[in-house]
């Protein structure tokens, strides 16, 4: 029972930790499936986190904060689109630039507006997305196993968490069951064919990039308004890049992406939870526990997932032949 309890708590922590990864990973999926590589997920998340927290602090409303976060993130996504779609610039360079701009400007603007060294003021309860109890969670709490799983694992997360996990089937449906999804995938594999069919490659790619912006904005807001209460400089701490790794790991498929992000989240959660606790009587060094997620990532990436083939037109700007 004690073991089960610990497991449920680790899984609960896994869910919390994998949400920003999942949102960023799905964001990257839209963009990369359309043939626009996006290394700037990290920067857009950071900008979204800042704008979300700043918006919420100023307006006093979590929803307006979320809106700010999404708008700013979409704005940066459009810059990336403008550089790499309209002007056919190098997508990697543009993405890196986005990361730098976000890292620098959030601190400068934060300092100028709030004078707290690049932080936003601490957010109160009304300015954050609080955990919501699903109906019946309290009643079922005492039922063994199922009750515990339902009340602790499934219930008691924020709205954005449920949104993130609902985005997985939704993204799958968009990609594989709608006309937009078909064209999106086609434009990432063979934009010339899409163009021949009379569909605008640029407009399709722009729409994909906007989807990316929306999702990274929400991912950022999750960091600053759910997991934390306010923005702190560099708070994304490399999550955008881990999401990118998860995307490759998932071979650019939404359901795989969810599992990849859950795996990364689980390793992180386990390393936190197992730190300092003896496993089978052996006290595992903290350093090993902390390195474990990375070691496993390397092993899994190197040996177990097979070849990950990116969308064929990924990274290549589309030039209409004349």
């Amino acid at each position, binding site marked *: 029972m004690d073991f089960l309890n610990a497991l449920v708590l680790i899984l609960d922590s896994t869910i919390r930790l994998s949400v920003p990864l999942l949102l960023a990973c799905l964001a990257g999926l839209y963009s990369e499936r359309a043939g626009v590589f996006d290394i700037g997920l990290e920067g857009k998340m950071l900008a979204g986190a800042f704008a979300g927290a700043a918006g919420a602090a100023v307006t006093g409303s979590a929803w307006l904060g979320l809106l700010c976060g999404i708008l700013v993130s979409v704005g940066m996504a459009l810059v990336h689109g403008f550089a790499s779609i309209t002007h056919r610039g190098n997508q990697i360079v543009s993405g890196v630039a986005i990361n730098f701009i976000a890292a620098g400007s959030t601190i400068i603007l934060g300092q100028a507006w709030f004078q707290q060294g690049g932080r936003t003021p*601490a957010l109160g309860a009304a300015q954050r997305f609080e955990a919501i109890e699903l109906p019946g969670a309290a009643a079922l709490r005492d039922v063994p196993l199922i009750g515990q799983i339902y009340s602790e694992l499934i219930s008691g997360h924020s709205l954005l968490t449920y949104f993130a996990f609902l985005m997985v089937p939704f993204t799958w449906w968009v990609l594989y069951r709608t006309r937009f999804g078909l064209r999106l995938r086609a434009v990432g594999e063979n934009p010339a064919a899409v163009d021949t069919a009379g569909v605008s490659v640029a407009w399709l790619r722009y729409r994909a990039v906007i989807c990316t912006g929306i999702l990274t904005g929400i991912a950022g807001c999750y960091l600053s308004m759910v*997991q*934390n209460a306010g923005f*702190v400089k560099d708070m994304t*701490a490399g999550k955008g890049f881990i999401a990118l790794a998860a995307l490759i790991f998932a071979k650019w498929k939404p359901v795989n992406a969810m599992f990849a992000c859950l795996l990364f989240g689980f390793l992180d959660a386990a390393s*936190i939870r197992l730190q*300092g606790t003896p496993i089978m009587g052996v006290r595992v060094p*903290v*350093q090993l526990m*902390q390195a474990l997620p990375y070691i496993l990532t390397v092993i899994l990436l190197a040996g177990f997932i097979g070849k990950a083939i990116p969308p064929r037109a990924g990274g290549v700007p589309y030039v209409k032949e004349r």
Partner: protein
Amino acid sequence: MKRFVLGLLAATAMATSAFAEDIQPALLFDLGGKFDKSFNEAAYNGAEKFKTESGIPYVEFEVSNASQREQALRRFAEDGRNPVVMVGFSWSDALTKIADEFPETKFAIIDMVVDKPNVRSVVFKEEEGSYLAGVMAGMASKSKKVGFVGGMDIPLIRKFGCGYVGGAKAAGATDVIQNMTGDTPAAWNDPTKGGEIAKSQIDQGADVIYAAAGGTGVGVLQAAADAGKLGIGVDSNQNGLLPGKILTSMIKRVDVAVYDAFTTAKDGSFKPGINVLGLKEDGVGVAMDDNNKPLVTPEMTAAVDKAKADIIAGTIKVHDYMSDNQCPY
């Protein structure tokens, strides 16, 4: 002509001596940044106090990666900045090198001992302040389980943890859950992970959590407050961050150390060597103010006062983790 030259020389000599009075202090922060609400911010407050009182401006630098340290230090020394004060143990390697190159410059380092003739090293007895924080935590805890979240896993932070464990156990806590945020300097600035560690400790039964983790601590305190538990702040007085949710803060008077270094350099009484500040010297302590008043019971105040007196008198010896890298509690 001869007289003129002599006069000129005398004038120059006077000018230089006047110049020597006019110090150009410099302050170098550690990773975590100036406004971490904790360690670095305390240093900033000390420097600001000096500036308002003396009217002498100072220059400052925030490092963003380790390779900048030596460069920044050399640059300040070359520019004739004097005294140069740096906060954080990580400066020691760079300082060991630079201190020899600029024997005329007065350096001060906080949190580390660098044995050079022109360096003042200020170290604190964090274990003593943490012991008091531990006493309060042990008394405030209902589950008799308390938590400790450290930043980067280094002996200095273990020293905080060890004193805290000692105090908490002395006050009746049965279990202290200790976690570190990471092994790299990034661990000073990861509130998300800090919050997650705090939640994990709360799930394991802890109801008072002490964060000695720089900027990461903000996340720890927030997570504790969100769960209706108590946090303990560090370095600066953090009671006001979340009023009524923070039991106390283990204050380390980094501000006093910085202020002291600047003022003694100004009046010419700057002394190199090792300064150890403990409870006796008021270098560490626990913060009591209006924000945590409702949380502190009279028994707690009495216990803290007694422990403090005992430590100063030497009847309680708080173990220093860094002396043997072990914690006996």
